[in-house]
């Protein structure tokens, strides 16, 4: 298993790569003016790892306290891209947090019947 950590201000991204999956764990708060500059390279790397090794990509937001709409944007674009390619993406959030429930249930619009894209509240 490999683990890389990326940090910008109050946002930390852990990129795990093991036999079963590629996982990006999000922690803290994302409030930067241009968060995509930090997020997109990490997500692109994770997508490429998943694609090249044919493993699902898991985006785990359970430990996120807040994110601005500029942070949500690249996540949505990644899901849109995944819909058009062969990537399997699972988004995991904490459904007991009202803001996470509202924010992530809306992403079910990208969910596919074959679970290639899955939005899961835990």
């Amino acid at each position: 298993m490999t683990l890389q950590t990326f940090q910008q201000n109050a946002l930390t991204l852990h990129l795990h790569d093991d036999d079963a999956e590629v996982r990006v764990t999000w922690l803290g708060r994302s409030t930067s003016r241009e968060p995509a500059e930090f997020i997109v390279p990490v997500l692109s790397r994770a997508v490429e790892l998943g694609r090249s090794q044919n493993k699902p990509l898991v985006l785990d937001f359970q430990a996120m306290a807040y994110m601005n709409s500029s942070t949500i944007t690249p996540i949505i674009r990644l899901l849109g891209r995944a819909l058009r390619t062969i990537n399997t993406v699972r988004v995991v959030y904490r459904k007991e947090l009202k803001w996470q429930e509202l924010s992530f249930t809306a992403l079910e619009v990208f969910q596919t019947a074959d679970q290639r894209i899955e939005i899961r509240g835990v």
Partner: protein
Amino acid sequence: MDPVLQLSIRPQWDELEHAREQAVSFLRGHDFGEATVNAAEMVVCELIENATKYGSFRESAEPLSIAISVQGSTVTIEVRSPVSSADDEHLARLDRAVQWIRGFQNPFEAYLERLREVSAQSLENRESGLGLVRIAYEGQSILDFFLIDQNVLAVSAVHRGQA
């Protein structure tokens, strides 16, 4: 506890965190539940971000003002920033966005439509236009705006809170 919190901040990104902390502390002081505090926190941040990005600040000392008022279970958040004129491009875009949101039966439908549009855009695209519709849907707030003396824009969001 005072029913109104008035803040005046410089239009700089690093001021946002300070305003957010004060807003959250004010709302907790009014015994709102976490769902309302989180929703209002997001609304405050998105409105300040928009005002900081698109306000026509002529000098760095020119402030951006925020008022958060509580009346019963209703929280009203208003952010004021300068505009260059009544035909300011930001103002026109804001008007289109608010009218567009009002054209939907409910904000959730507007949010889903915007998500679909954003998902088709390039990862490198910097604009999303997601902030206002997120305020309406996730912030469960009614958006409005008006001009004061042709050069100050006041954008408000009214949220019905829960204890």
